[in-house]
């Protein structure tokens, strides 16, 4: 409801060919400021990564310092521990299920909500928007009771389905204006060619929507990957734990071994950072696409 208008409006501007010229040379002050910002942001991450190379007695006696010597033991120990890989695998499976369902069903619904005219359309849209206002923390306990009735507890796919439901609102809110902005002529042409509306959706609209689909996919994936409270309540068995649960569990189980906790935490950052390095362009472009069409 919020994003539509902006999108449609900004899109007009964005349709112009991009031509960016230099406003002059970037000053050293700007470089300095940028580096400072990046440095301050990165500091906590570096702190954790570097402490992962130290030993616990060393950290306890000197809270801040360089590793001497650099120890690989904490990291190699965790990488050799199948628990870590199980957490990682669970997180990945849940995120994939949740993303696939949210993007698939969300795109179908957004198509219907943007390019069909039917009674109750805006009401139905408003109904999905409600979901944006409901934090999972608020719904978590009733949801657990409900999932227990559906026999979906301790099932990683069950959690994936529930998380997909929570990712739907944002998906639909971003996709609908995007799809609405695709010119009518394209659809008419497709219908005349005998492709039908669903054919148009599948063959033309979805490929055209790739940037927006990437954005909502990234958002759904990240939300699922990071979610903490829902898995906490839905999983009883540690073998189903996700990475964030694993970090918290590991932290309380090994809290005497600060260095190992640091290493575990650092390794749990790694997937997010790797993901970002590969997908940075996609994310920025996708968000650009989502916001300005």
């Amino acid at each position, binding site marked *: 409801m919020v994003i539509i208008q902006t999108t449609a409006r*900004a899109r007009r501007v964005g349709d112009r060919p991009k031509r960016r010229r230099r406003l002059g040379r970037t000053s050293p002050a700007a470089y300095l400021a*940028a580096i400072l910002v990046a440095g301050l942001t990165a500091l*906590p*991450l570096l702190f954790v990564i570097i402490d992962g190379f130290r030993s616990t007695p060393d950290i306890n006696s000197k809270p801040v310092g360089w590793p001497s010597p650099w120890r690989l033991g904490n990291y190699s120990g965790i990488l050799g521990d199948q628990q870590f890989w199980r957490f990682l695998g669970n997180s990945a499976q849940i995120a994939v299920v949740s993303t696939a369902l949210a993007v698939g069903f969300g795109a179908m*619904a957004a198509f219907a909500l943007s390019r069909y005219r039917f009674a109750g359309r805006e009401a139905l849209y408003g109904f999905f928007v409600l*979901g944006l206002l409901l934090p999972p923390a*608020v719904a978590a*306990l009733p949801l657990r009771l*409900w999932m227990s009735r559906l026999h979906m507890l301790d099932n990683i796919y069950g959690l994936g389905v529930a998380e997909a439901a929570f990712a739907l609102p944002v998906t639909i809110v971003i996709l609908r204006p995007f799809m609405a902005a695709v010119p009518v002529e394209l659809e008419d042409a497709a219908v005349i060619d005998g492709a039908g509306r669903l054919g148009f959706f599948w063959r033309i609209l979805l490929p055209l929507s790739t940037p927006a689909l990437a954005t909502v996919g990234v958002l759904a994936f990240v939300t699922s990957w990071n979610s903490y409270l829902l898995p906490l309540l839905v999983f009883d068995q540690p073998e189903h734990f996700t990475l964030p649960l694993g970090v918290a569990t590991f932290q309380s189980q090994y809290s005497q071994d600060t260095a190992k906790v640091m290493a575990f935490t650092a390794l749990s950052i790694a997937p997010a950072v790797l993901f970002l390095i590969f997908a940075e362009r996609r994310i920025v472009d996708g968000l650009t696409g*989502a916001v300005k069409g």
Partner: protein
Amino acid sequence: MSTPRITSSRGRVRIRMELGFLLGPATLLFAGFVLAPIGIAIYYSLYSWGGYGPLTDFVGLKNYTDALSGSVFKQAVEHNVLLVALSLLIQLPLAVWIAMLLNRRMRGRALIRVVVFAPYLLSEATAAIIWALMLSKGSFVDQALKAVGLSGQIHGWLADPDIVFYTLFVVITWKYIGFGIILMLAGLQAVPAELREAAAIDGASPWQIMRSVVLPLLGPTIRIWIFLSVIGSLQLFDLVWIMTLGGPAHASTTMVTYMIDHGYKSNEYGYGSAVSVIVFALCFAFALLYQRFVLRRDLDGALTNAVR
């Protein structure tokens, strides 16, 4: 916007089937896992229920009146409102400023963008654990202050009731500002460099360019950010819960930590449900008002654009 032409009753049936196919799965999923819990929460909120056995102790709206008149819940609401205000006053300008900075051409820009965005991709649990370690007494933050000669500024970051909330605000800013920056960067693509150049040639100062050219064009993006930021601020939970449990003495309690603490942790499920319904209602009221008063302008533009 296109309207499938309805030519026959067969066509109408067909459209219905298509709509059913397209909307059915999403509606089912959403109703089954998002709306059902809201309904269940509303139902529980009318009972005094300790989590065991059937719901028998119907108390009507007592849970709601208790929450709304309780001093701790009021404190929690104040914290959420303060968080909204601080976000608008500090995070917003900071996000715009950093986005402008990173919109320039510079060496290593991609890397800097990745770094700035990274905290947003971390899980709250991980971020909270990292900061709790850094902020503990004598740890990184204290040592860093000492190293730059500010040892007088060392505080009990998470222990002093007067400071803990601001400490958390710094962590929240660190965690979420990346999203604002990326959003603003995307919005800045809509501000053509020519416009700024032209203004500069006309003798406008950087501040004037900012105020008269950049900000108006960033308007839509800023309004979205405000919406998302307010909703996020009202629903803040994980970071606070892991770092302070809402303490000391409720100095960092938010509405949702209050709900978990005084509702679920005390086995007062009916009460907790009432608090969650209140949080939901507040978010809903904000969304309606915001839509009505702030986004109306955007709405007009959207309609005219969409119709073309």
